[in-house]
Every structure is written in structure tokens, then in C-alpha cells.
């Protein structure tokens, strides 16, 4: 097999982004929605790492480092809101939350 090229990496990353986006839009369990958001951020990470491998130098990897930090912070706040919601309403489902129905 010939070694993978930049396009292989980007295809994987774009598919991962689609999977994450589908999860965010389709799933009703808010915990899984947050996980899907993580998948989307990771898809971008994969693309950045690939670009950094194929000629763009290390700056892309630095970017990924910051994305990991941001993702951790975002998850923490998201989960905190979910816990507060659960304490008040006893649910973490999209369908039980009036304002999330489109």
C-alpha cells in the first residue's frame, strides 16, 4: 500500500466532523450531544495535525493544544449546566426541554 496522503487525512477528518454534527442535531440525550460536540472539535484537530504533518510546520499542533484546552473548559461548563438542569427538572433530554424544541 502506498502511504496515505494529505487528502486521506482530510477525508477522515471531514467524515468525523459530519458524524459529530449529525450527533449534535439528531440526538436527544444532552450528554450525547455534548460528546458529539467533542467529536466535531476533534475532527478539526485531526485536520490541523494533518496539515502540520504535510508541510505547515508545528503551528498547527500548537493550535490543537489550545483546542484541547478549550474543549475541556467547554465540557466542564456544559456538564455543570446539565447538572443544574437535572437538579431542577430531573431530565437531560432535549424533548423534555421546551426551549430546545425547534
Amino acid at each position: 500500500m502506498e502511504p496515505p496522503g494529505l487528502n486521506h487525512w482530510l477525508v477522515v477528518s471531514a467524515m468525523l466532523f459530519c458524524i459529530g454534527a449529525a450527533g449534535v442535531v439528531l440526538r436527544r440525550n444532552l450528554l450525547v450531544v455534548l460528546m458529539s460536540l467533542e467529536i466535531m472539535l476533534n475532527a478539526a484537530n485531526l485536520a490541523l495535525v494533518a496539515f502540520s504533518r504535510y508541510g505547515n510546520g508545528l503551528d498547527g499542533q500548537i493550535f490543537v493544544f489550545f483546542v484541547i484546552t478549550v474543549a475541556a473548559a467547554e465540557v466542564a461548563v456544559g456538564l455543570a449546566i446539565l447538572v443544574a438542569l437535572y437538579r431542577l427538572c430531573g431530565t437531560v433530554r432535549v424533548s423534555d426541554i421546551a426551549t430546545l424544541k425547534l
Partner: protein
Amino acid sequence: MEAALFHLFSFLTLAGALLVITRRDPVNAAMLLVLTFFFMAGLFVLAHAWFLAAAQILVYAGAIMVLFLFVIMLLDAKEETRRCFGRVAGVGALAVGGALLAALAGVIRDGRLWRVPAGDAEGTTAAVGRLLFNTYLLPFEVASVLLLAATVGVIVLIRAPRRPDDAPPSA
């Protein structure tokens, strides 16, 4: 060898991600997400991003996923009994998916991408650290403030009232 590993890890990453968004039980989903991130760390190694591979496992598998599991246990989240997809949302998802698939087609179509040679960037801890603490020092400081702000936000959201006079208003 490299090609075989790339295909293996890519397949496993994508399969893991697909399973995450289709499993009904959030605990299952969380465990699968850990696996997905592990395989992704494998991809990072193949891309010579050594430091990031380690950070990926430490932060995602070690910290973020533990947080998820804690919250899942805390909330006692049940399996979804009804179908887990909404109908209206499906239409929106199709639209978004279509747009993104166009991007994907662009990736494949763009012939220039096929011929980009691999560079010599080695993402060792030393190299990444040197860059981080020179060129990117200011964003690094901002990121540290971001983490503090997130912590404070979590405390505000979670902490129970401390004293009777702190009790929430009745409204």
C-alpha cells in the same frame, strides 16, 4: 506499515464515533468515545505529533471522559426508551450533512492535495514547548485565564447555597 496503521486507526476512529452517536445508553457512548479518542491518538502518532498524542490521551481519556462518566452516574441517566432521533431534526441534519459532504467532495477533487509531500515537523514535547512559550506565550496565558474562568463558572452553577441567607429567592 504506516499505510496499514493509518487505515486501521481511521476505520476504528470513524466506527467508534458512529457508535457514540447511535448507542442509546450514555455510559456506552462515553466508553466508546474514550476508545475513539485513543484511536485518534494513534493517528496523531502517525502524524509525528508525539506530544499531542499524549495530551489527547491524558486530557480526553483521563480528564474529560472521567468528568462525563461522573456526571452520567450522578444524573442516573437512563437509556433512551423511545427512538433516539427526532423527525424535524432529521431534515435539518440532512441539509447540514449535504453541505459538509460537498466539502468532502472538494477534498477528494482538489488534485493539489494528493501531491503534498510530508514535511519534517516533529511534534516532540521540546519542540512544541519551545514554540508555545515563545511565539504563543500570550495565547497560552489567555488559555490559563480561560480555564480559571471555566472553573469559576462551574462553581457558580453547581455550588449549593452556603447559608440560610444565601437561599434562592422564592420567585
